[in-house]
């Protein structure tokens, strides 16, 4: 029976290819959108018992938490590629946080955060004159790795919030792209940032098939309320934007205004269709309007969050960031190795439990 079980176990690995799954999903979405769905529906499936033995290896996790409390680990949180503590940030801190994300959904959201963190690092490096080929390659590799993991978790998840997170990530990526484009256009020696744009565009194309299935506007929402929500959001963004006069802000303001115009146009068209009773198409336009408004909001947020101190003279960035000093690099190396070992042991324990 053992041999049979082994063969059955191998058989369980068979699954739909991603393209086939996507194709079937698209056909289903088409069917769903062309049919009248009931307002409410009750669906239940088999329940399963929760095992309280899942967390029996907590002591090992406590060790990881203690590792997180090391001063070096905390200091590493703000490190950038090229800094001595960057290895601790990505090799220790982020690894521990990932292991401590117990559910697949938490791990999925964690990878999304990591992608955004890498883009922040791109922007920080560029605005402090530290973005070189080496750090660019390092960031690209890390982003690709996080995206592959995120994509894997996405297909394993059975959660509509995963679709929403994809839509939000799409908006965040668009916002980062706008800021980076602003940096390229406005300052010299920003050629290394072009690869970041290409990478973002590649991720966007992979996200699109997922995000187009679910929008921000629920089918049960009153579209007039949605219109008001979008109008309020865009008004608030305009208020925040007005009065910012620096050279960098001018370029960013242009991008924000571009997104707001796109949002307003879709809002006007959606409103007209809603008044005519064409609610399906109105909903799609309002979704598009809301996303454009969110992109504008995100661009503003990124811009305000960037720690930019520049001498705006002939478009050159002249201030350089001080590198972090590390007193005991040997100890740092030891910490990374020890935490690596513990993380691997804990992962071996958690993997069979499906965590």
């Amino acid at each position, binding site marked *: *029976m053992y*041999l*049979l*079980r082994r*063969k*059955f176990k*191998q*058989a*369980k*690995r*068979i*699954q*739909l*290819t*991603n*393209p*086939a*799954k996507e194709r*079937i*999903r698209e*056909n*289903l*979405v088409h*069917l*769903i*959108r062309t*049919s*009248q*769905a*009931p*307002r*409410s*529906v*009750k*669906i*239940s*499936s*088999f329940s399963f018992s929760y095992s309280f033995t899942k967390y029996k290896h907590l002591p090992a996790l406590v060790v990881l938490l203690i590792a997180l409390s090391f001063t070096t680990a905390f200091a590493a949180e703000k490190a950038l590629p090229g800094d001595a503590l960057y290895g601790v940030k990505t090799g220790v801190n982020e690894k521990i946080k990932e292991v401590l994300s117990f559910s697949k959904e938490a791990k999925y959201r964690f990878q999304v955060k990591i992608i955004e963190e890498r883009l922040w690092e791109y922007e920080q490096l560029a605005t402090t004159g530290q973005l070189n080929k080496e750090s660019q390659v390092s960031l690209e590799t890390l982003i690709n790795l996080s995206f592959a993991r995120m994509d894997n978790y996405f*297909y394993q*998840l*059975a*959660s*509509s919030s995963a*679709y929403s997170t994809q839509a939000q990530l799409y908006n965040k990526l668009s916002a980062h792209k706008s800021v980076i484009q602003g940096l390229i256009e406005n300052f010299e020696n920003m050629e290394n940032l072009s690869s970041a744009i290409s990478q973002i565009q590649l991720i966007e194309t992979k996200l699109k098939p997922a995000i187009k*299935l*679910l929008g921000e506007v*629920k*089918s*049960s929402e009153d579209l007039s309320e949605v219109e008001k929500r979008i109008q309020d959001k865009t008004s608030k963004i305009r208020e925040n934007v007005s009065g910012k006069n620096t050279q960098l802000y001018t370029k960013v303001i242009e991008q924000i205004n571009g997104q707001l115009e796109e949002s307003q146009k879709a809002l006007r068209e959606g409103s007209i269709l809603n008044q005519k009773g064409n609610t399906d198409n109105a909903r799609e336009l309002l979704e598009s309007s809301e996303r454009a408004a969110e992109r504008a909001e995100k661009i503003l947020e990124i811009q305000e969050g960037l720690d930019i101190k520049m001498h705006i003279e002939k478009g050159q960035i002249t201030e350089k960031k001080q590198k972090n000093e590390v007193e005991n690099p040997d100890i740092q190396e030891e910490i990374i190795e020890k935490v690596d070992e513990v993380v691997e042991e804990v992962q071996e324990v958690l993997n069979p439990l499906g965590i």
Partner: protein
Amino acid sequence: MRNPEEKFLVIYEKHSDAIFRHCYFRVSSKELAENLTQETFMRAWKYLLEKEEIKNMKALLYRIAGNLVIDYYRKKKESSLENMTEAGFQIASNEDKEMKTATEIRGLMDKLDELEPKYSEVLIMRFIDDMRPREIAKVLDLKVNVVSVRIHRGVEKLKYIYVSS
């Protein structure tokens, strides 16, 4: 609160691989299994539109898939194990083990094919779809005891087929 469309797509994400696997082991053709998987979910959606309440979605999906397989058997049965290795077929394993895994799985399908459908069906549900006997009983509309007996006899027959080959 999720709307019906979202709920259904979540269900699709959750069960599509399992339904595909189930169909694949019953019909031995990747393309056909994909078509049957799609048809299963489409019919489930249409059923949902009519009834507005489904107490057991998983059971419904397997029941629809099972009926589609039976319909297929009535028309035509193909045994195309060569489809296992055609481009695009995905086994969730690392590349080093893929060839060995594909061979073993092909062997298993071959042996399951030699069983009577009433046995291969329950074995697939029990050991590949990981369904418990009472879940299988609900899908097939049988008593739990009947399912347990079929599983037991199916395993014995499968062992015999392996030994005698």
